[in-house]
């Protein structure tokens, strides 16, 4: 794909036909760039990447059930979160490269910037709740905040993305009002099940 250079403003108002022609050329370039950005965000997420994250989520839920202390349990989920973020970045980068689109330009950056605030809030609240001995509330909190991030980040993407976020928020809400011993089950249903179902849907309908 040809490089699209940043468009600088006109030095002056167009007063002759050649300047008018230049203004129209700039308008065309702007239109192309905006269309590419919107079209890119349409399928920026890698569906197969989400499926892999879902499998990792199921594995992490199974391992979490075998931990004996709250400390080990939280540590395991923290490591899993980092691994899943890396899988997400790698598979999205691979999809972006397949479509000859930069990961950190336009839609990819917008997606990451929208997802980041709830993730940061989740990380801080995790520390607070863990210190207060309220680790049992963490699955619901994580599912809800991740869902909130996916809804905002996926606002301009295919409908499946924000819809997945809604399901995460529902799972998180139900988890918060469920018995504490169901925490790992809700994590498996959300980070495992929802990722696999919506990942497959996105991969099949939106090119990988």
């Amino acid at each position: 794909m040809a490089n699209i250079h940043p468009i600088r403003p006109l030095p002056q108002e167009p007063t002759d036909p050649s300047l008018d022609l230049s203004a129209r050329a700039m308008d065309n370039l702007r239109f192309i760039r905006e269309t590419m950005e919107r079209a890119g965000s349409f399928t920026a997420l890698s569906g197969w990447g989400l499926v892999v994250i879902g499998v990792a989520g199921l594995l992490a839920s199974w391992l979490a059930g075998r931990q004996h202390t709250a400390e080990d349990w939280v540590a395991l989920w923290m490591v899993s979160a980092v691994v899943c973020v890396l899988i997400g970045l790698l598979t999205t980068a691979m999809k972006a490269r397949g479509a000859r689109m930069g990961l950190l330009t336009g839609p990819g950056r917008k997606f990451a910037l929208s997802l980041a605030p709830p993730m940061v809030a989740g990380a801080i609240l995790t520390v607070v709740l863990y210190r207060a001995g309220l680790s049992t509330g963490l699955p619901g909190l994580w599912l809800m905040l991740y869902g909130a991030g996916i809804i905002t980040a996926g606002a301009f993407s295919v409908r499946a993305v924000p819809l997945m976020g809604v399901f995460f928020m529902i799972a998180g809400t139900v988890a918060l009002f469920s018995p504490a011993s169901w925490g790992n089950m809700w994590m498996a249903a959300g980070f495992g099940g929802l990722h696999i179902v919506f990942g497959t849907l996105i991969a099949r309908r939106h090119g990988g």
Partner: protein
Amino acid sequence: MRSVAGAADDTAAELDRLIHERVRLGIVSALAVNASMSFNELKTMLGLTDGNLSVHARKLEEAGYVDCAKSFEGRTPRTEFSLTDSGRRALEAYLNHMEALIQAVRDR
């Protein structure tokens, strides 16, 4: 340095009229950043009617700029569009023309 008039003449003479049209330029630009897009995705994204998209997509297909694959998802027909190498080259040439035109005015 090329004159503005020269650049304008070149553009008029060589400009790819086929993708200069706004709807077709939108289709080609959207397909340039996606491996493929369905009829409904393109229609929604570009805010077009069925008829409008059909007409313009067919022109691009006839020129060899766009590939069109028809299939069935259950009983629902599904049309997938993708950009051909020739279409990608046409978009690059169009971008180069626009940039040359702007540059010629700047260098004046």
